[in-house]
């Protein structure tokens, strides 16, 4: 090696170390997981490195897997929807606060991210249980007679996931709100627009990029969340990530677990890239 840095090889030399880390920690394990999904497995023979499609055929044909994947994406979709409905107005309010209040509430908003996932989820389990605070409160208020089922239901999982994932939506939308011209609302106001019209016609179209990036983060994290579905959903209510976990660590059927994990990844990429394309085309002007 001559050790000469030229115009041509400089970019490669500079990006080389990061590229190696990326290759070693992301690409190779990912490639091995994909490869693993094509291996054979048997109760007594263990993992056999022979090419077979049986894991993939099983994942695609067994309605058990279909149900779990549907549930995973239903939960992710509901969490994303709720994050938009709650998070967008919250970001807007945050953006209009005075700086002192804003930093206080920013801390409140990112609070869930500062708490360990296990402690936070167990906290939700305490609140949502049949004798938990929420049910006791609702019964005391006379709104319900018998406790609502939150634990081991999709509702419970969705609630817990909204709580922890909404900061990502708020921060993403807030970032795009900060890019708005501070006089733009006054401009619309002076032209005769009411508050609601300003929101719908002027603010909302301009923060679509923020909502989109927030949604992608929230959707991807919700679909691949593990701890919340594991604790609140329990053993009965499986999602893709807990399913993959069980295949790997309980059944020890690594190839099948790998197939589930790969499918989750591919589906997520397709959904996010697809919706990204769709929305970017629709709102082409604000994405420049």
């Amino acid at each position, binding site marked *: 090696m001559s050790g000469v840095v030229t115009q041509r090889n400089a970019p490669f030399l500079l990006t080389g170390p990061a590229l190696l880390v990326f290759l070693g920690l992301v690409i190779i394990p990912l490639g091995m997981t994909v490869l693993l999904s094509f291996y054979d497995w048997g109760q007594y023979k263990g993992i056999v490195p022979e090419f077979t499609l049986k894991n993939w055929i099983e994942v695609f044909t067994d309605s058990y897997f279909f149900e779990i994947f549907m549930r995973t994406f239903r939960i992710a979709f509901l969490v994303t929807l709720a994050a938009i409905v709650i998070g967008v107005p919250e970001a807007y309010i945050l953006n209009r606060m005075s700086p002192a209040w804003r930093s206080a509430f920013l801390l409140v908003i990112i609070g869930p991210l500062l708490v360990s996932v296990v402690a936070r989820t167990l906290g939700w389990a305490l609140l949502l249980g049949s004798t938990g605070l929420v049910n006791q409160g609702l019964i005391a208020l006379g709104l319900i007679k018998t406790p609502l089922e939150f634990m081991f239901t999709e509702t419970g999982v969705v609630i817990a996931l909204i709580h922890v994932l909404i900061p990502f939506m708020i921060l993403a939308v807030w970032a795009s709100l900060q890019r708005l*011209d*501070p*006089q*733009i609302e*006054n*401009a*619309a*106001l*002076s*032209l*005769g*627009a*009411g508050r609601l*019209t300003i929101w719908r*016609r*002027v603010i909302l*179209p*301009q923060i679509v990029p923020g909502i989109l990036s927030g949604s992608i983060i929230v959707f991807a994290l919700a679909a691949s969340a593990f701890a919340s579905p594991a604790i609140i959903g329990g053993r009965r209510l499986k999602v893709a990530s807990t399913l993959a976990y069980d295949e790997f660590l309980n059944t020890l059927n690594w190839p099948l677990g790998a197939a589930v994990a790969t499918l989750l990844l591919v589906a997520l990429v397709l959904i996010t890239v697809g919706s990204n394309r769709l929305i970017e085309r629709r*709102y082409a*002007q*604000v994405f*420049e």
Partner: protein
Amino acid sequence: MVGSSPTMTPDLCAETVESPMSHLVLDGLTKRFGGFTAVDAMNLSVERGEFVSLLGPSGCGKTTTLQMIAGFVDVDHGGIRLDGADLVSVAPNKRGLGIVFQSYALFPHMTVAENIAFGLEMRDIAKADRDRQTLAAMELVGLKGFADRYPRRMSGGQQQRVALARALVIKPALLLLDEPLSNLDAKLREEMQGELRQIQRSIGTTTILVTHDQHEAMALSDRIVLMNQGRIEQIGAPHEVYDHPASAFVASFLGKTNVLAAAGDGQGAVTVGDFVLPLPGAGKGPLQLAVRPERLTFALAGEAGLEARITGRVFQGTHWLLAAESAAGTLTLMRGNDGAAVPGEGEMVRLRFSAADAALLPAGAAA
């Protein structure tokens, strides 16, 4: 106030001199932010079709005044009347004023035509009418053919025109301009000044301009309202405030000026250094005179004048700027580049000016 008898009671007239055709009236307008008084009991009447500039340094209250007229900032005390009707109680989106913002505040996700038509849409004007008026507004500001462009793909000057068209298309009772030209480069700014003036003249909309740029204010306005620390220092036509500043602040804020220490003899003459000048109305004792650099001339041989030593000179193309030291203080003077010899550094000169060129500043005013 509408329909009241044309002869007002004297005590009302004393506060606000309000001609019957005043279009916009600010009456004791006051705004405080915490302990800070941004606008302090401001009185102003603007005639229909007039172009008035609020001029002053940053923090003088000019923008706050504009925002109170627009309705973006609440009024603490006093009133705003448009055509005799109270404006303060009207919601900002019902005031029907055209506003051009410093940043233009165009809607980036809408085309030029959509931006301009927005105000018409809010007024529920039928599509055909809307399109016609939008087109007319684009022609007025010289943007024909730009209908489908997005603001982001336009230059600063073009964006400015869109903002102007958007404000004018709703046929506003008042046009409010908030430092509209400050984001343009010098050449374009001059061009737009001319055009803005011409457009305003042609449509005759009463216009209030907020600016910190004295050249802009002087080039555009019928009258300038000079503001400082929330108060009006002086109101007048550009040449009036320039030539006859009412205070040391006005004299020093508008253009360059020399404030000379002088002494009055109480009999209509003042002494500046060793130069004696008849100045009717001058009191007795120490006083201050404001003289513009371009009004200081060199004394001819045998004429009386203020002794001064040239301490510096700078060539500026059309003229020379000279600095001089005299018994009455440091002076700046201006000599047109007319081919005549200009004294060099260190030379002694005698300077003079006529009584008409000197403005007597109120006693106690700080230089």
